[in-house]
């Protein structure tokens, strides 16, 4: 499981972000000791650093420079200063990605997965098993009791979302938002088609009644 280190001075954001990322299967770590933050990060060896720019003691740029000088930990800069120069400076200092506050959590998650996939392919779960269905995210295929089937990019994304939701009801809007964040701007009808096709595929490999419709709310696995 990937560990994400949060460099953020706002206590509230830290706790809430930790809760949110836990829900999506990440471990979180953080510290209040901003004077020695670089040392602490290097000691804890996270897989990813979420770095705020506006910090006490020394600013994010200097932490970013110092971290990059001493390690290859992927860094996503998260800031409320949304100017092009900040982004350019961050990238120049070796940050892997840049997001501005207030962020849509789906965007944040999409960026985290993208960076982790690029820098830490082994930490992104290859195959996931849940209630008799095994999904191989690397090969984009699904295995059931009666065989296996290929999955499209959208189907993979949808199943990924259901897996990270772990039994929670997922709304149609939430599914669409996740698809939109990976450049698939589907509309309501396309989503219905996608879901139905996915159901038929799962049935064909012997996984029946997997996506349960919750009338007026969404779906659950």
């Amino acid at each position, binding site marked *: 499981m990937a560990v994400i280190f949060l460099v953020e001075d706002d206590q509230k954001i830290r706790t809430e972000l930790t809760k949110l990322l836990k829900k999506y299967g990440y471990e979180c770590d953080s510290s209040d000791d901003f004077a020695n933050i670089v040392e602490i990060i290097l000691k804890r060896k996270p897989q990813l650093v979420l770095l705020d720019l506006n910090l006490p003691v020394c600013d994010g740029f200097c932490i970013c420079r110092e971290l990059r000088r001493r390690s290859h930990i992927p860094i996503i800069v998260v800031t409320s200063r949304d100017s092009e120069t900040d982004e350019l400076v961050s990238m120049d200092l070796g940050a892997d990605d840049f997001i501005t506050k207030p962020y849509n959590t789906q965007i944040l998650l999409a960026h985290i997965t993208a960076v982790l996939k690029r820098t830490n392919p082994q930490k992104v779960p290859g195959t996931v098993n849940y209630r008799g269905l095994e999904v191989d995210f690397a090969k984009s295929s699904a295995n059931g009791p009666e065989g296996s089937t290929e999955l499209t990019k959208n189907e993979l994304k949808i199943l990924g979302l259901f897996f990270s939701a772990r039994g929670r009801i997922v709304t149609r809007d939430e599914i669409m938002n996740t698809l939109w964040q990976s450049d698939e*701007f589907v509309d309501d009808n396309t989503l219905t088609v996608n879901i139905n096709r996915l159901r038929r595929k799962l049935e064909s490999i012997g996984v029946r009644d997997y996506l349960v419709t919750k009338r007026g709310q969404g779906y659950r696995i």
Partner: protein
Amino acid sequence: MKLKAFLWDHISSLTASVLAAVFAFEFLCALCNEVYAGAYLAAIILLAEAVALTLEYLKKRGFYRSVTQSLDKLDKKYLLAEVLKEPSFEEGKLLYEALRESEKSMNDEIAKYRQKSQEYREYIETWVHEIKTPISASRLILENNPGEISSGLEEEIDKIGDFVEQALFYSRSESVEKDYLIRETTLHKLVASALKKHASLLIGAKAAVHADGLDRTVFTDIKWTDFILGQLLANSVKYRNGPLRIRFFGEELKNGCALTVSDNGIGIPEQDLPRVFDKGFTGENGRRGAKSTGLGLYLCKKLCNKMGLGLSICSKPGAGTAITIIFPKSNMTASLTKL
């Protein structure tokens, strides 16, 4: 300076010379009965006056003509003293000095206000920056506590976020400094980023999005363009008419590239169309229901103007609205394609 007005101004000296001439003539006639001597002296007096007045007229005309002409040509009239040559006559010197003084005080005043507006702008930037932290925190809290109340509040928080962003761009659009950064990007990247950012809003409105011909390189400030596209999308959602369809269409022009964002919304009445980019203009649609500030399109236009992009609109009530952003081909693009 008109000759008549000039003479009228010197009426006392003219009258005095005429009186002196008449008096001299009368005096000489009475004294030695010499009509010619009298006429001669009177003529000399009048001639001397005429020569003096003509010389003065020419001198003053030169100076005041340069005053009026420079005033016509000048964009900032208060800088008049800057372009004038110091005149050689006393009256002119006084005026010149007065103009210089007032120009200096005007410059000081402008500097004071520029400073104040700069400080205010910096305050707005900091404020926007500060407020984003509690907004982010609120969003995360709501996200972690899903439910009916949360989703309702989430929508409101999104609105607050949009208003805050508008305030930021308003202050940026007013600033005299050039604080944008033109970079290379593609229409596809710009559109995708705006769609992702406004995903919740568009999905909530059941929007169907189509895109065509976005595989084109353009040069623009990415953040500013993102804001502009965001405003257009927000308008499409706000003024929708049944199931929303949004189409992005990119095409190559002779001197650039055009991105058209069209929707199937309620459209804009013809009489309102020429004024939609005016500040504070809300028009028929604004009055009819949807809350309109009259700022969105105004800001879009202003930001486009600053970056040198074109922005045009066409609309048909009941059919929809299409907005086109024109990205000019810069010299940089030209030299790049040559390489």
